[in-house]
């Protein structure tokens, strides 16, 4: 732990958090192995690592969700045993969880005082909480309506409520677990401003993330975890994205996607006025029109829940369309002649669904069975009435080799593969047939950085081989690095189109929040003649 002492050396004050040799095992899995960590008070300390690297386990131990098998926790220099969340709260630790811990049907005030009421009867608690909330909102510049129902607030505000909750309990150490996953870029910027002001007021912030950009943008120190171990501590200013990525994965990683200019061919998919109205009468997809041509990747950006998922399901034939028409490779579909998944497959349209566990795989199936789902009627897999087990197995083994699925065990249950490898099984199934149109949803959700690189490379390879690719993702970085053209969806409509070369996060973020009209977009981005903002109806 040479680096650790190096960081602590220049500081006079006792470290806000000091973890000594923490071990934690879940059955045979060693989630944390001899982890040491020192966090300097009044700083923002990033913890970065791939999924399953043990970051969340470590923080859960610090917040009293789990007890460590061995090791010691020192808070402000004092050994502090933490067995329950109550112990952690008493030690001044607050946590903002990845999935917010709010009661949707209660007001902000009620949420904030839950568990920290001042007496058995609420009247005085409410008054006290309200006054304290006003003070906190003023001091930290966190603006939230105390009487709003938590469930009706936008996610960015819900997160503020979580931060206020921690501060209300007197937390001077704030842990944030993947806080930006649900935020738009603008909300992320706001969050970072909040964190910055917290730091100025002396609060110690621990930020858990797998996004390198965020680490570089806001943290003072960064610790890298890999395979349950703490592999490095760095001063952020003295490191780089490339170094951190290499430390996380354990090998060199290409962060940007290498790609040539697209060689665009004929139109493969043409969508006109496609509309989908759900049972509640809400138009989830609202008169959407666009085209995708062979040899290009069209990305659809948007804050999750603005109709992208529905669009993808409409195009793959899972959801019936309400109105409009879709031309796929010369075949015309409409409400009267609906798309269906089998017909789409026959047309060589492949679909990588957003939610692989719900739609892409059957968890309890063996990998070789999951690898032929939807194509199981292919004569190659059948022999008369029965399925051809040998053919299926050898086919799966080949796919696993081609797509670097680990472990290469066709007979292993699907559920026993990691998220990234499950995704590779789906991709192998859909890509290995050389589809002419590829519909992809969230291809790298929950996938490690090393596998992301691999998946991106394969998508580009499909494009270069002449497939038309439609990519839906909430990860802006992904959309920007893979796509050739970017469409932005807001409340079911396409509100704008930007050539990828001219896109940046700010512009896309504004369009995703529907804050940018054409003029504004052009005004803030004068060098953007290609931005076409489609006027909503």
């Amino acid at each position, binding site marked *: 732990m040479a680096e650790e002492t190096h960081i602590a050396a220049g500081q006079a004050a006792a470290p806000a958090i000091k973890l000594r040799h923490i071990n934690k095992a879940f059955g045979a899995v060693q989630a944390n192995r001899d982890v040491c960590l020192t966090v300097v008070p009044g700083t923002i300390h990033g913890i970065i690592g791939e999924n399953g690297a043990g970051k969340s386990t470590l923080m859960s131990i610090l917040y009293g969700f789990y007890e460590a098998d061995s090791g010691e926790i020192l808070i402000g220099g004092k050994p502090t045993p933490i067995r329950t*969340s109550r112990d952690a709260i008493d030690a001044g630790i607050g946590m903002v969880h990845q999935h917010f*811990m709010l*009661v949707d*049907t209660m007001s902000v005030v009620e949420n904030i005082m839950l*568990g920290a009421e001042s007496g058995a009867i*609420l009247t005085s608690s409410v008054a006290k909480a309200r006054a304290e909330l006003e003070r906190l909102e003023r001091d930290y510049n966190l603006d939230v309506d105390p009487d709003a129902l938590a469930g009706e607030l936008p996610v960015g505000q819900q997160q503020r409520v979580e931060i206020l909750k921690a501060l209300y309990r007197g937390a001077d150490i704030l842990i944030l677990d993947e806080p930006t996953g649900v935020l738009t870029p603008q909300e992320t910027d706001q969050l970072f401003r909040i964190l910055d002001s917290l730091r100025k007021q002396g609060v110690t912030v621990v930020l858990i993330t797998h996004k390198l950009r965020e680490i570089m943008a806001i943290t003072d120190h960064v610790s890298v975890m890999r395979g349950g171990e703490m592999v490095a501590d760095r001063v952020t200013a003295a490191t780089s994205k490339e170094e951190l990525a290499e430390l996380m994965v354990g090998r060199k990683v290409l962060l940007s996607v290498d790609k040539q200019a697209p060689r665009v061919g004929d139109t493969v998919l043409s969508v006109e006025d496609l509309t989908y109205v759900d049972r509640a009468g809400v138009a989830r997809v609202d008169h959407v029109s666009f085209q995708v041509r062979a040899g290009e990747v069209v990305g659809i950006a948007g804050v999750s829940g603005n109709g992208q998922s529905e669009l993808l399901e409409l195009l793959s034939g899972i959801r019936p369309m309400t109105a409009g028409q879709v031309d796929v490779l010369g075949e015309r579909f409409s409400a009267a002649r609906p798309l269906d998944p089998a017909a789409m497959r026959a047309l060589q349209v492949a679909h990588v669904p957003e939610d692989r566990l719900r739609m892409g795989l059957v968890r309890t199936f063996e990998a070789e069975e999951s690898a032929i789902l939807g194509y199981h009627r292919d004569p190659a897999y059948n022999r008369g009435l029965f399925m051809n087990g040998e053919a299926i197995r050898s086919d799966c083994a080949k796919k696993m080799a081609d797509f670097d699925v680990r472990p290469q065990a066709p007979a292993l249950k699907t559920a026993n593969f990691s998220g990234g490898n499950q995704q590779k099984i789906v991709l192998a199934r859909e890509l290995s047939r050389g589809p002419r149109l590829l519909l992809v949803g969230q291809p790298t959700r929950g996938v490690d950085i090393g596998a992301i690189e691999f998946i991106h490379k394969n998508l580009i390879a499909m494009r270069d081989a002449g497939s038309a690719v439609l990519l839906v993702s909430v990860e802006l970085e992904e959309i920007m690095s893979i796509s050739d053209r970017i469409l932005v969806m807001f409340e079911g409509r396409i509100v704008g189109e930007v050539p990828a070369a001219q896109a940046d996060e700010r512009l896309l973020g504004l369009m995703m929040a529907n804050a940018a009209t054409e003029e504004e977009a052009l005004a803030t981005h004068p060098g953007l003649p290609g931005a076409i903002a489609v006027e909503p109806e």
Partner: protein
Amino acid sequence: MADLLLNLLLSFDATLRVATPLVFCAMAGLFSERSGVIDISLEGKMLAAAFAAASMAAVSGSAWLALGTGILVSICLALLHGFACITHRGDQVVSGVAINILVSGLTVVLGIAWFARGGQTPSVGPEARFTPITLPGAEALADVPVIGALYSELISGHNLLVYVAFAMVPLTWWVVYRTRFGLRLRAVGENPNAVDTAGISVARLRYTAVLCDGVLCGFAGTYLSIAQNAAFVREMTAGQGYIALAALIFGKWRPVPAMLACLMFGFLDAVAIRLQGVEVPVIGPIPVQLIQALPYVLTVVLLAGFIGRAVAPKAIGTPYVKER
């Protein structure tokens, strides 16, 4: 005209008596279900309490001792439900149904073994029952028009447990919406994770809720056997626990609307009794069976969507497991 009014008044009077066990059970269910534990065993707990109270009343001759026994037995069953659903994360509906079946058999078996009257308990005298009490001033006011009649006929002249039941409604409201326990109760039924991360034990909170449920069901059962009646009769709850559960859902898990739903069911029941044998022009006498089926028919009709969508506490029915 005056005759009709008096009839109506007597129907309302009967309504209160019939609705009393429903109100107790609905409030009981409210505590449990608001904490996220489905309670189908209201019926069973009420039946067990009715039997226990009647047995104790027959043996000891004390109504108060009987009430205590009824509550105790009901609490034991509530804790059994809690043990299955909270500690062992079992299926809440299955556990509830199991308790109902267990009690339905056990009360008869024990009744035959102890009293040898085919499952009934011996009738007890007024000293071992909760008998009607006349409120002060009822007789003096009886001759005052309207108010007098209302007070002396409708309000006065019920047994103590009726008043306790209706006092439980504002009390439940106050506990649920105005106390720390109530805040946590509402929170744990919606999002137990929020409660756990706030440093509060989910299991303890749910056990407390289930305990409240047990106490109130004990009152309901005791009322049935030694206040409304004078002995335990096999299956004497006759589905009232389920009706109370329906009332709770009608009332969207809120105390006052739930009580109103109980009163509506009670009123239908009271009217059903009054309408028996009444001649209706053209049709003739109303068939008794039809009248008796009315509350159940109405339950189905109302549940089928006339009351708007009832949104249950979000975490209801799901055992709490700390997520990884």
